[in-house]
């Protein structure tokens, strides 16, 4: 293996640069335009277990191969002429590293080489995992006192416990409502932690998405009646059953329909349509990539402000107008729906106009939910 020198550095500059790179905690390797190794620091040797005399791109690629396609990432960095980072992390030995590839150009724009940097994110990942495990554990523990509160309120309101005055009953109902809201929050947090820990089990069975839309709408009937909302349901009779996990599908359908009902003012309307969308068809402003079942929910609610559209699927985020209108949301519903759909190869998107309403579309491929998902977060 030959080690070439970059044409723009004089020997003294080179010594200086080498000292700088050597002192870094991140693993650094430098290759010339012909992918010959120019420089490898001690941190890189330690991280990869490859001595610098034997360090080349082929060896490095092989080391990362089960989890990361280094040549693909390199091509992308060269094509886009900027740093390309693999955020998910590359596991090497017992550690996890973030890998960044940066093309290196001379002042006149000619490619001199590429810089490869490994940054240790093992500790970050451990902390994130510990946090998620803590939430899971705390949520389970919270359920015990919540169950006791719910059950004793139920007993208090039952005729056997004696008659409550109307005022006492109203107080009890207020306690019950808050307690049930807490149960819903705990359940949502548990689902979030399962998704983040990757322990969300998926068990598919032939499933009719229309049945879920119907049952969720039926559950919301008290609110629908109270707000005098008009519900327009249009279910294509030709929709086949598709392999899906009922628990996961329910979370998705429930969050989308519930939001429409929650954020539509009294007297408004909510339209729920379930139909087959063929590959190439445009639904709610977007082209469907594969043959899918599409559920589209249109409301005449408060809409999503332009400036906050990018954040609507972010964990714990709630739009300002939604926050004003309904104080009891938890900012987890759409995050969960999106996370589930990402994981199973489905999609969710929306169009919206503030003050007029929103339209959300959820699609699942006709082939059903897939474990491993459609990889919408993978680098393209």
């Amino acid at each position, binding site marked *: 293996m030959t080690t070439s020198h970059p044409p723009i550095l004089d020997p003294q500059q080179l010594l200086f640069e080498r000292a700088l790179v050597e002192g870094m905690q991140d693993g650094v390797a430098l290759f010339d335009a012909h992918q010959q190794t120019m420089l490898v620091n001690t941190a890189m040797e330690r991280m990869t277990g490859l001595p610098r005399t034997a360090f080349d791109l082929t060896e490095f690629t092989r080391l990362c191969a089960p989890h990361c396609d280094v040549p693909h990432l390199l091509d992308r960095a060269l094509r886009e002429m900027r740093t390309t980072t693999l955020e998910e992390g590359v596991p090497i030995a017992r550690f996890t590293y973030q890998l960044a590839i940066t093309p290196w150009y001379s002042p006149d724009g000619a490619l001199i080489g590429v810089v490869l940097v490994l940054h240790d994110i093992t500790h970050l990942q451990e902390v994130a995992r510990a946090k998620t495990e803590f939430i899971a554990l705390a949520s389970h523990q919270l359920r*015990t006192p919540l*169950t*006791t509160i719910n*059950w004793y309120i139920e*007993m208090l309101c039952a005729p056997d416990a004696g008659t409550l005055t109307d005022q006492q009953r109203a107080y009890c109902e207020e306690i019950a409502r808050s307690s049930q809201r807490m*149960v819903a929050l705990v*359940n949502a947090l548990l689902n979030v932690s399962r998704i983040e820990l990757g322990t969300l089990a998926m*068990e598919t069975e032939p499933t009719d998405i229309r049945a879920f839309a119907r049952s969720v709408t039926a559950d919301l009937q008290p609110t629908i009646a109270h707000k005098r909302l008009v519900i327009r349901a249009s279910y294509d009779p030709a929709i086949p059953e598709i392999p899906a996990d009922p628990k996961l599908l329910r979370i998705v359908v429930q969050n989308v329909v519930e939001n429409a009902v929650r954020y539509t003012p009294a007297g408004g309307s909510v339209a729920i349509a379930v139909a087959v969308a063929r590959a190439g068809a445009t639904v709610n402003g977007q082209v469907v990539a594969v043959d899918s079942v599409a559920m589209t929910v249109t409301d005449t609610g408060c809409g999503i402000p332009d400036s906050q559209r990018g954040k609507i699927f972010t964990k714990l985020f709630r739009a300002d107008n939604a926050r004003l209108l309904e104080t009891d949301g938890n900012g987890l519903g759409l995050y969960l729906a999106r996370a589930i759909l990402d994981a199973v190869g489905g999609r969710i998107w929306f169009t919206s106009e503030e003050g007029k309403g929103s339209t959300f579309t959820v699609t699942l491929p006709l082939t059903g939910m897939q474990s491993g998902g459609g990889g919408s977060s993978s680098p393209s």
Partner: protein
Amino acid sequence: MTTLIVEDEPAMLRALTETLTRAGFTVLEAHNGQEGLAVALREHPDLILLDLIMPVMDGMTMLRQLREDAWGKTAPVIILTNLSDAAKASEALQHHAFDFLVKSDWKLEDVVRKVRERLGDV
């Protein structure tokens, strides 16, 4: 009809016992899996409501040991827990538990309905 409730939390045990008694069932109580197994094998209740996380012996261990007994092999069991773990649920169903209910999602009256449904007494 006799139901055995195996539950370590006194407040929940009391709520379940009072509710099922009012609904016309004879109720037996146990505070952990070991006690539950002894009462079940001695009294042969018509149905067992079983919690999972308990001291001395947890519910899943009790269920496994119950299934080794000639009578216990087919004794009706409903898991009633706050642990909503898919792995635990599928293990319970493998051991022929009739259902797996998450307590915080269930009202007492719905638990009673479920018990009646299992006993064919709707």
